[in-house]
Each structure stands twice: as structure tokens, then as C-alpha cells.
């Protein structure tokens, strides 16, 4: 196993090198033949897209993190992004609600559309975009406020409730949808930071859906949780998929297999393969996908 890993990392290093020094004729089997720039196998496109993404490139300074990805994300589907660490799946996810804007050196190129409208159009209001495309982070990040105030935060800043009773309804509904209502209904005024990690993460999901987004982005939402809390969140994702488009980044292939309809495999900034989830895990088309899901690296 260790020799395999060693040879593999060697292979990756060669690939990196080959990419860095542009095409030319490499002596052995060149890496470009394994991943073709901007080329994805499987079914990356959809007839009823929510997001239409074409030739997306992301740079951090001079480093290119995302290398020409084209992908459609359909309405009300759950799509999982998998791939080894540092392959760009989180970076790509953060492009979808422009969370990369706050990073000075980050530049995004290509065509990114939500319902046919350009995301990065300067006239487009990023605040409105983020209200439509919510995000749940890797580490639970509740605000240091009460449970109630955490959920009410979004509706308040967007003026979604005219009266206190309306706000109460929104908070209750969101907590119910997040499967948290029964656990916290008696202590809505308690600080959110006093909850367990799993509860905090579900609170963050409740907070996100309280502003009624159309899309929920989840960046490894279960990586800081124990197996039981993870199971709860996964159940929740299954329920939410009826009303929201969900894009989930995960390191757990089992999780991707359990919750998603389609799975996208990222490798070193390339989108290698997109297919129906069961196809990816039973009969992957691309050799790199197969190596990854069989545990040869990652």
C-alpha cells in the first residue's frame, strides 16, 4: 500500500510538473491524456438548470485553483462534490454565492449563471444573491446570541416579518425543518454557543433556511460532527431536498452515496467526472474516479 501511495504521489508530482511546463512531449505517458483541460466525462449538463456554469476558472494570485470547469446544477437536485483535499471543490462551491469576494487575491473568470442571470455582473446585488443561495459551513458557526436571535437574524435583516408573531412563526418553522424544534423550544433564549456541536450545525442549517433560499450550499457540513449527529444532518438533507437545490461538499464517499442524486469528482482543480451517484460508485467512467473511490488515494 505504501509503495502504491508513493508511486501515486510521484505520478501526481509528474502531472503537476507537466501541467506547469505546458504541453510538449513528455517521455512517458503524459498526464494530459488522463485529464484533458476543461473536459468532463459523464453527464455534466442538465435540461432544467438552476446554475449554468461554463469554463469557470479561479485564481489565487498566480495560482490557478479551478481549471475550466463546466457544469449544470439542476433544480431541486442534491449534488455532491467529492475529491482529494485541495482539489478545489470548496473554492468552486464558494464561487456560487460569491463568498470568494472577501478574499482580495481571488479572481473568478468564466460564465456563472443563476436562473440565466450572471452572478458576477457588477450590477447584480451580492446581498440578494446570498439571500437566494444560502451556505452552511464546515465548522458550526452560530452567532454568540440566543438560539432565537440566531434564526431570526436573516429574516430581520431582510425584513421578512412585519410583526413579532410572524417572526416567531418563521423561527419555529425553520427550527422544525431543521429537526431542532423539539430539543430547543423551551430554551429559545439560551445562548446558541452552549449547544452541542451537532445541534449547533442544525441551528446553522435552520438559520440558513429561515431566509427561504432557493439553493443551499454545504461545505463539509458533517466533518466536525460525531456519527449520530451526522446521521441527523443527513436525514435533514434528504428532507430539505424536496424544496431546495442542495450542493454538498464532502470527504465521506458514503455520505455522498447516501444523500446525493448526482456526484461530481474533482481532481487538482479539474472536474473529472459527473454522473448519477450510483453510477459513480458502481461503474465510474474515469480511471481517476475509480482510483479515488476504491481508496487508492484521497
Amino acid at each position, binding site marked *: 500500500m505504501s509503495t502504491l501511495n508513493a508511486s501515486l504521489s510521484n505520478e501526481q508530482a509528474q502531472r503537476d510538473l507537466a501541467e506547469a511546463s505546458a504541453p510538449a512531449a513528455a517521455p512517458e505517458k503524459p498526464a494530459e491524456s488522463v485529464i484533458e483541460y476543461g473536459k468532463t466525462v459523464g453527464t455534466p449538463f442538465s435540461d432544467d438548470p438552476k446554475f449554468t456554469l461554463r469554463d469557470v476558472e479561479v485564481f489565487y494570485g498566480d495560482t490557478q485553483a479551478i481549471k475550466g470547469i463546466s457544469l449544470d446544477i439542476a433544480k431541486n437536485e442534491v449534488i455532491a462534490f467529492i475529491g482529494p483535499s485541495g482539489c478545489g471543490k470548496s473554492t468552486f462551491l464558494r464561487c456560487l454565492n460569491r463568498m470568494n469576494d472577501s478574499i482580495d487575491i481571488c479572481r473568478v473568470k468564466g460564465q456563472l449563471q443563476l436562473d440565466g442571470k450572471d452572478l458576477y455582473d457588477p450590477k447584480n446585488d451580492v446581498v440578494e444573491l446570498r*439571500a437566494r443561495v444560502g451556505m452552511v459551513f464546515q*465548522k458550526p*458557526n452560530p452567532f454568540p446570541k440566543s438560539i432565537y436571535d440566531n434564526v431570526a437574524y436573516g429574516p430581520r*435583516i431582510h425584513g421578512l416579518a412585519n410583526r413579532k408573531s410572524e417572526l416567531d412563526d418563521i423561527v419555529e418553522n425553520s427550527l422544525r425543518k431543521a429537526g431542532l424544534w423539539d430539543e430547543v423550544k423551551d430554551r429559545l433564549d439560551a445562548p446558541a*454557543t452552549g449547544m452541542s456541536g451537532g445541534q449547533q450545525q442544525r441551528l446553522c442549517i435552520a*438559520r440558513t433556511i429561515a*431566509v427561504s433560499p432557493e439553493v443551499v450550499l454545504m461545505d463539509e457540513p458533517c466533518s466536525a460532527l460525531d456519527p449520530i449527529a451526522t446521521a441527523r444532518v443527513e436525514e435533514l438533507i434528504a428532507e430539505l431536498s424536496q424544496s431546495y437545490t442542495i450542493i454538498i461538499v464532502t470527504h465521506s464517499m458514503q455520505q455522498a452515496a447516501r444523500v446525493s442524486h448526482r456526484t461530481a469528482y474533482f481532481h487538482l482543480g479539474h472536474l473529472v467526472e459527473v454522473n448519477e451517484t450510483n453510477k459513480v460508485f458502481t461503474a465510474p467512467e474515469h480511471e481517476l474516479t475509480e482510483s479515488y473511490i476504491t481508496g487508492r488515494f484521497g
Partner: protein
Amino acid sequence: MQPANLIPLLVVLIAIAFALGYARSRALAAPLGGIRHLKSLPFYYAARAAMWCGLPALLILACWLGFEGKVIQTLIVGSLPDDLRPESAGEASLILSQISNVASGALSADFVPEPIAEAATRLTALREDSKLMMTLLVVVIAVLGGFLAWLRIAPHINAREKFETTLRRIFFACAAVAILTTVGIVFSVIFETIRFFDKVPMTEFLFGSSWSPQTAIRVDQVGAEGAFGMIPLFVGTLLISAIAMVVAVPVGLMSAIYLSEYATKRVRGIVKPLLEMLAGVPTVVYGFFAALTVAPFITDLAAALGLQASAESALAAGLVMGVMIIPFVSSLSDDVINAVPQSLRDGSLALGATQSETMKKVIFPAALPGIMGGILLAVSRAIGETMIVVMAAGLAANLTANPLDAVTTVTVQIVTLLVGDQEFDSAKTLAAFALGMMLFIVTLVLNIIALHVVRKYREQYD
């Protein structure tokens, strides 16, 4: 030997003890098969020997220097003939200074009575003896301590742990110095304050609304009646501090918010050091600025508005003081705001909040305790500031809330009380201590209140 020469000698002894201890521990380790068979590294045995050599000797030296003078004085006074024996403390110190003047040659022995001259000779002799004995004692103790520690080096002794224990005690002693100093200051002020309240009733001092600290030097002097009501001074202090805070808190806070949330790295790199430079300008320079530029400007402006402003005003001092303490507020707040985790910002932004909403509703509440800390520091700077007030707000103790009038502050009055020619136990001089005490109590109470407020409203993010 002079104590100044004794210290280098001690250092040499310590170095020798260290070297010998090191050599001995290595020598002991060699037959056992290397230093791995010692309980501790040779360094720790050596350090322990050095400590045993140095610490007791230094302690003895310090004690000797501390008590030498007193002991010699008592001996000298005791040996004086009965007719010269002093009756009061003041008399004793007079005679003693006469004796030591003769001993040092500043006063010729021909001008003083015979017994005094004799005492001076005795004093010189005693001092010589004392120096000799001290040197001997310190060196003997150092050598003895070092030797004992050297003897006790053995492979089974855990010198490392013992060295650590001693170090911990030394660190504790250092920490205690700061606390003891504060306690000492407080006590010295308390005793003088009590003496002041013997002369002036406490109620008059606390509630009197007139401040005119005159005491008669001659019995028949005109205007000898002093008034020691501290209210005008505290009102003046609070007025000027309030004006300063009105300037410093909003400007400082908003510049901190700009620097931490909106400014690009480059702008921040230039602006932050510049802002902090404001804190490095000597207060005298601010005083010039306040007295020569701001105060006349305010007088003119007030005249243009049809108001009457005195040439020295609380407003001028307060405004300039506010500028002076901006960096205290901004720099500390900036650090605190930066310390709020990025994940909270991301969480808020991802919900569609704007940058300013995020600031107002998430980051500011989370950073509040630290921001309050910065503001408190600024308040204590403002209350303690003296120079700007002397130059720009004047010395007149007016009881007024009008910022265009001249006022004075507690610290300024303390300075003026102590620089005058007065006997030390007059009410005028002692009043300075009472004022200092009150200032200390007021800032302490302010701190306690602020601490409670912060604890109540803080939003903990960890």
C-alpha cells in the same frame, strides 16, 4: 569593598560555582556510563550550584545595605553624651546630618562641639568596619553555598525539578514586587490622607463647592482662610474627560472599524502606524497645540457666535486630549475586532447581510468587552492627564458645566499644591494626598462598574 565592586565579584563566584558544578556532574556521570544515567542534565546541577552560591549572598547583601544606615545611626546616637542626646526625631536628624557632614569633610570639625567631632570619627570608623564585615560575610556565604551545592551533586538528585522550583519562586517574587509597590503607594497616600482629615473635616472636603487651598504662613496674613471643597475639581476633571471621550470614542471606534473591515492591506499598513504615532507625541506638545492654536480658535468662534469664551477653556483642553487618546481606542479596538473569528463574518455574510450589518449586529457585540477595555484605558488616560490641562484649561477652580469656561482638574491641583513653598504638614500640601486618594477611588470604582457592565452584555464566541 564597595557594594558596586562586590557585585562583579559575586558574578565571578557564581560563574566559578557553575563551572565546577558542571565539571563535577560530568565527572560523576562518567563512571556510570554517560550523562544519561544522571537524574538531570549537567546544566541543571551546575545551575543549582550557581543559585546556591548567588542567591543567599545577594539576599544578605540586600539586607545589609537596607539596615546598615539605621543600625549605625542608632549606635552613634546612643554613644552621644547626655547633654547632646536628641529629644525629638527632628532634632536627631539635625544632629546626625551635622555628624555626617563633619565625617564627609563638608563641615570642618573646628566649628562643632567636641562630642560631635568624636562622633564623626566614630561614624567613619563604623562605616569602614561595616563595609569590611559585609564583604567578608557575602563572600563567605557565597563560597559556602556554592561549596555545599557542589558537594551535594549526586546522580540520584533531580536537580532539574529543584531548579524549576527555585525559578518559579523567583518569578513569583518579581510579580509580587509590582503588587507590593502598588500597595505601598496606596498606604503612603492613605496615611497622609488621614492626617489631612485631621486638619480639614471630611465632609467639607467631599461636599464643599469651593476650592481655594490657602494656608497662612504668618498668623496675621490676609486671606489665610483656605477652602478645601473638591467638588469643583472633580467636576472639572469629569467635564474635560467627557469632552475628550466624546471626541475619542466615535472617531477611534470608527477608524478601528474602517481599518479592520474596510481598508485594504496597504492602506492599513500605512494608516495604523500613523495613528499610533499620535500616542507617541509628548503631551507638552499637545499642550502647545491646545493653548496656542485650538484655544484662540475656540475663543474666536465663540465670539462669532455671540458667546463668551475665556482664553483658556475646558473645550480646548478636552478636544486636544480627545485627539491624543484616539489611538488608545482605535488601536485596541482594531486588535479586538480582528480577533473575532472569520467564521462569524462568513456566517453573517452568507445570510445576505451587508458588511455594515455584519459589523453592527455580529462583530461589534462579540468584540464589545475588548472595546470597553480600550475605552476604559482611554478614560483613565484622560482623567490622569495633566499637562494639556495646565496649558489649555487653566488653574481656576470654577464650578461650572460650561465648556467655554476655564476649569481645573484634580491632577493639575495636585501638581500646583506640591510645587509651592510650604511646610510638609500644612493642610495645603496634605490636600494633594487626599485628592490623589479620591482619584484612585474614583478610577477604581469606574473600573469595577465597567467590568460588571462588560460581563453582563458580552457575547462569548468561543
